[in-house]
């Protein structure tokens, strides 16, 4: 008969946690970018080096975030798409895997499909900007690889993403 207390406590804590989550104002995830170079690249003019992947602010942006149930790419990520496409044009041997991910809502297998849609969306954008199809590989992880485990939009928006992973740099 210990349940009621534990049950109530759990409910209270869970409710508080949910309230805390939902009261957070949604804000765009912080871009994982540090400005370490002053040059602006992305024109595909051959000025990238392999090291640029680690030093160029634009190329260091490797995560594209998405709205709920959406696969279109926000304008704020267009610059990153252009930079990666330029790099891929310059280094035809370079290969990327586009890892599609979802938040936890919905069923796991359906979310595999949703993650692939996002991956395909980024693949299409990179291809449209000049990367060749053979350089791009899409893998959907659905909701299996969250970067954030809380139940709320502040966390969910960090999980709805495509990660650009270089499997060969040149």
């Amino acid at each position, binding site marked *: 008969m210990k*349940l009621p207390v534990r*049950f109530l406590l759990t409910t209270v804590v869970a409710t508080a946690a949910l309230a805390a989550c939902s009261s957070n104002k949604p804000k765009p995830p912080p871009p994982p970018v540090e400005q370490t170079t002053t040059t602006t690249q992305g024109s595909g003019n051959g000025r990238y080096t392999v090291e640029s992947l680690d030093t160029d602010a634009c190329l260091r942006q490797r995560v594209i975030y998405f709205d709920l149930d959406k696969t279109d790419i926000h304008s704020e990520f267009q610059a990153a798409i252009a930079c990666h496409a330029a790099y891929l044009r310059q280094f035809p041997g370079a290969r990327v895997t586009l890892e599609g991910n979802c938040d936890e809502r919905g069923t796991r*297998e359906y979310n*595999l499909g949703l993650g692939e849609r996002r991956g395909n969306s980024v693949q299409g954008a990179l291809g449209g900007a000049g990367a060749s199809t053979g350089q791009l590989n899409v893998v959907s992880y659905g909701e*299996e690889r969250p970067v954030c485990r809380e*139940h709320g939009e502040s966390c969910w928006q960090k999980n709805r993403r495509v990660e650009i992973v270089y499997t060969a740099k040149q």
Partner: protein
Amino acid sequence: MPQRIFHWLAAFALAFCTMQVSAQGLTLDIVNGNASAIPIVTVPFAYQGSSTPPETDIGDIVRADLNRCGQFRSLAKDQVVEFPARGSDIKFPTWRLLKQDYIVVGRVLDAGAGEVRVEAELYTVGDQKPLLTNLAISGQRSAMRGIAHQVADAVYEKITGVRGAFFTRIAYVTAKGSGNNMAYNLMIADSDGYGPQTVVSSRQPLMSPAWSPDGRRLAYVSFERGNSAIYVQDIATGAREVVSANKGINGAPAFSPDGGRLALALSHGVNPDIYVLDLGSRKLTQITRHFAIDTEPTWSPDGSSIVFTSDRSGKPQLYEVSAAGGDGNRITFSGEYNAKPSVSYDGKKIAMSQGSGNVYHIAVLDRASGTATTISTGSFDESPSFAPNASMILYAATEGSRDVLYSVSADGRVRQRLVLADGDVRSPAWSPYRQRGQ
């Protein structure tokens, strides 16, 4: 605990119409109770052999099994006032006074070579009619939980007319760790969560276990090759093979009722459609062809059709298509999100994950009336799986930051939380009926 507090807590429990019994990591919630549940007493099974008494009490397991299916209300062990081990020892007026409809008695004997022999009898209390008098099952002491589940199955079938499903297993996936340090395990355990065994381990995600109809193999999705791929593994030997590793998604395997084919969702890098793979010839047949996401195929019991999830109408809904292929017809019309179907053995009911806003419950669709009934209360309930007799449904839920499993009676009234592992537990699949020795 001081008596007064105990009483206060008891009152509270009643006020919430919730009762919980804990035993070795298993918790049983009786939600709202069930007035129509059949009162039954299972007397502790006395050990009548000559060596050390076994630790497993058959009576405890039978009592728990009958409780969690929702159709019975077992008299609590501490209210069992007499201890007959045979039908001839039962004083029926005692149990009539305790308002019991049925009584189970039994004993455990030595069977030679270290084995035990469990004998059980079932009587009606009202007219003292013997329903089971010669049930006897022998086995190793280590197999006594399985024997107890078989006794519960026999009692269940005798009273309800439907085969019991307590002597079955469940498969599920556990996930521990975070970031690049994850450990995934595909596990199997008894239907009540006891006796967990690892089937396969991986540092990459494992998903969607599905039982073969003979209960000997599991199909599942593994990312160990860097992308989703479908494996079929023999549980006893551990031998396994990759049966699908195409570009794009290889997901949602489901064995056909004859065991010879596997329905799957394949995207070939574009969008997932439903396919059927012949496991013998490896011939692949495309069943659906639509630019939407078609996934989570489930066979009808006779293998003639496949129920699946598709978002062709905008949001995921359930559709049914001939196993020979076609467009499919929509079968869910209420609820904005209906996915991950599990079809009952008679095809009359479909359990599914039903979503509305940010809340996902398990709902059961009655095919004849078209009405869906919600049977779970969590916020992120998904992945329902019917027991082979459809008396119970296993599903995944989220509590705090943990994924856990519940089994719930088909009417939603009795729910049991299965605490199976540290970390997250998900993607449950209820096995088919089990053969002895399996």
